[in-house]
């Protein structure tokens, strides 16, 4: 098996908002190999975005943070590395796609000059060669009439076209990894389908690895090889996407999946979901952070935080739960828990 291109080990991020500190990410480990897609799934406040951006120095200005643990790109440590060096590694090796293409472009500059900027900086191309590269990149991402559109301003493109242009920008320096943070959340369904198709095709063709941050289980089902489910700053379940989505072990994963209306739902029937609200990270408590919303909770859940450990009945699947409902159901198929 090839070496991981991006690897996190015991990664932690503390954020310092106006008052106090928030342990937004805690002890997170995963690895991403070339050509693979790892989806990080979670709801707001789960830490999925902070985990992916903070170690790379990409939190918005003004947000002060403290990163511990390790994040390595092709074996090179990024945590604690001076900004300038980190920017070099990032610029040459990692491309980014964000949720909102409009706010990711400079509204005052033409699209083409922004798309070719990484190539200009990291590959040392001449201005003319960079312009040709921009046309080539925009054509590659399916932007029709690219030669004319490179001279447009971002607001002159539709949402879908802007997202294509942002993907082109992410590809400009021929990165090994693309980090896509909710890449299709702001798009309409039919445009989302186009963009996901494009991402899959590019990954195939260019052999890139994809770190896909999303809340959309359907996107995970279609795209991901592996999935890590985050809750309250920690990974609560991790494994091959098919195993986790078909046979989730962690009660949170189960609740999250149950929240998605199934295709065979009957109109007018009540929705299944999770009770309560996501935890407040400012108020750290002992035990399992999910226990108050959990239908399976037992006594130790209040005092002891469950470690992320192998789910014995499913290969490569790990879950942070004292109960392990999947194992219980496997051992006692008649007594299905709630």
């Amino acid at each position, binding site marked *: 098996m090839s070496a991981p291109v991006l690897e996190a080990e015991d990664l932690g991020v503390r954020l310092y908002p106006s008052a106090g500190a928030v342990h937004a990410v805690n002890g997170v480990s995963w690895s991403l190999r070339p050509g693979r897609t790892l989806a990080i799934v979670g709801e*707001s406040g789960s830490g999925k975005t902070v985990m992916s951006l903070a170690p790379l120095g990409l939190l918005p200005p003004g947000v002060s943070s403290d990163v511990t643990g390790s994040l390595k790109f092709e074996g090179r440590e990024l945590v604690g590395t001076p900004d300038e060096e980190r920017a070099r590694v990032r610029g040459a090796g990692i491309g980014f796609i964000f949720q909102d293409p409009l706010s990711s472009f400079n509204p005052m500059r033409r699209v083409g000059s922004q798309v070719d900027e990484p190539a200009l900086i990291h590959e040392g191309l001449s201005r003319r060669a960079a312009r040709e590269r921009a046309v080539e990149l925009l054509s590659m991402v399916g932007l029709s009439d690219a030669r004319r559109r490179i001279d447009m301003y971002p607001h002159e493109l539709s949402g879908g076209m802007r997202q294509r242009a942002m993907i082109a920008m992410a590809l400009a320096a021929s990165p090994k990894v693309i980090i896509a943070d909710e890449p299709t959340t702001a798009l309409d369904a039919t445009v989302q389908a186009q963009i996901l198709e494009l991402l899959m095709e590019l990954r195939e063709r260019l052999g890139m690895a994809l770190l896909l941050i999303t809340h959309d*289980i359907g996107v995970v089902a279609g795209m991901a090889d592996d999935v890590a489910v985050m809750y309250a700053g920690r990974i609560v379940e991790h494994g091959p996407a098919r195993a986790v989505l078909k046979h989730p072990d962690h009660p949170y994963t189960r609740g999250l999946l149950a929240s998605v209306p199934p295709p065979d739902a009957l*109109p007018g029937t009540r929705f299944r979901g999770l009770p309560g609200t996501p935890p407040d990270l400012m108020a750290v408590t002992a035990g399992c952070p999910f226990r108050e919303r959990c239908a399976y909770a037992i006594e130790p859940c209040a005092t002891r935080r469950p470690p992320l450990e192998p789910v014995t009945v499913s290969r490569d699947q790990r879950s942070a739960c004292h109960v392990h409902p999947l194992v219980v159901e496997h051992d006692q198929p008649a007594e299905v828990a709630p």
Partner: protein
Amino acid sequence: MSAGHLVIESLTVKFPVQGKGTLTAVDDVSLALAPGEILGLVGESGCGKSTLARAVVGLERPAQGRILLDGDDLTQLKGSRRRQLRRRVQLVFQDPESSLSPRLTIGQTLQEPLQIMGMSDRVARAARAAELLEMVGLPSHFASRSPGALSGGQRQRVGIARALASEPDVLVCDEPVSALDVSVRAQIMNVLLDLRADLGVGCLFIAHDLGLVHQACDRIAVMYLGSIVEIGPSDALYRAPEHPYSTALLSAVPVADPDLERSRSRVILTGEVASPIDLPSGCRFRTRCPIGQQRCADDAPSLRPAGAGSAACHFPGQMRVELAQQTATG
């Protein structure tokens, strides 16, 4: 007597666009909502669904058409009669963050409409506010809290409670759960289903999440570029869409089952939505339609019975059949 029969008749809403003429956001739309019915309205951004919602609650003035509530035309009424009837159709906003005043407590927010309706007794108002909170599943002590102390899901419950203050027959919900976390959406959807079951409140439910709409609604209407292209019973439309746009929209939505998701075919639409300022001739979907023909450019299809509902297409069902063949042959 069942109250709350809402009929939208040939509704058209236009906006002037500086230097470019007129934008027709809603074009000759007719819909009927039976008392207690939940009718889903789906479509992509810019299709006019929010404008339609705003027109129904009186926030946009239609260029043409009528909005009838139990026979009374809301667009024609004036004065106190208008205010009285308007109360019976209430809007629930998408974003509970910006639609609640941060300066008011939850109790004050809920009491405001009661005061406007003439409930002058302070004690009675507070009691009614507590009752409204209970209807949406919040404890009554939330009345003293400010919106900032609530989660997104709790704020949306308050938004619904406020809409219920005037005892409406119909709620117009514009993307009420889109801003909420997936695990919290179900709770809010159940509040709406319970209100229908307990009070008979009908709902015009606008959303882009088709899975959600399918489970919540009795019927679904699909909007494209200002007009309804298909309407039908929820399950029938979800399983067997007749219009090629409905088919594309449904095939575009990813499903959570990895085996199903990876084995099915999609209709990937190309091109861009036509401009509502300069509509194409004939069918307005034909510029992106995979099965469009010359006839579609010459002759605009009207809504006609197709399958279990109606579709505005010269070739209803054809796209669905082609897609099924593609999936079958892999």
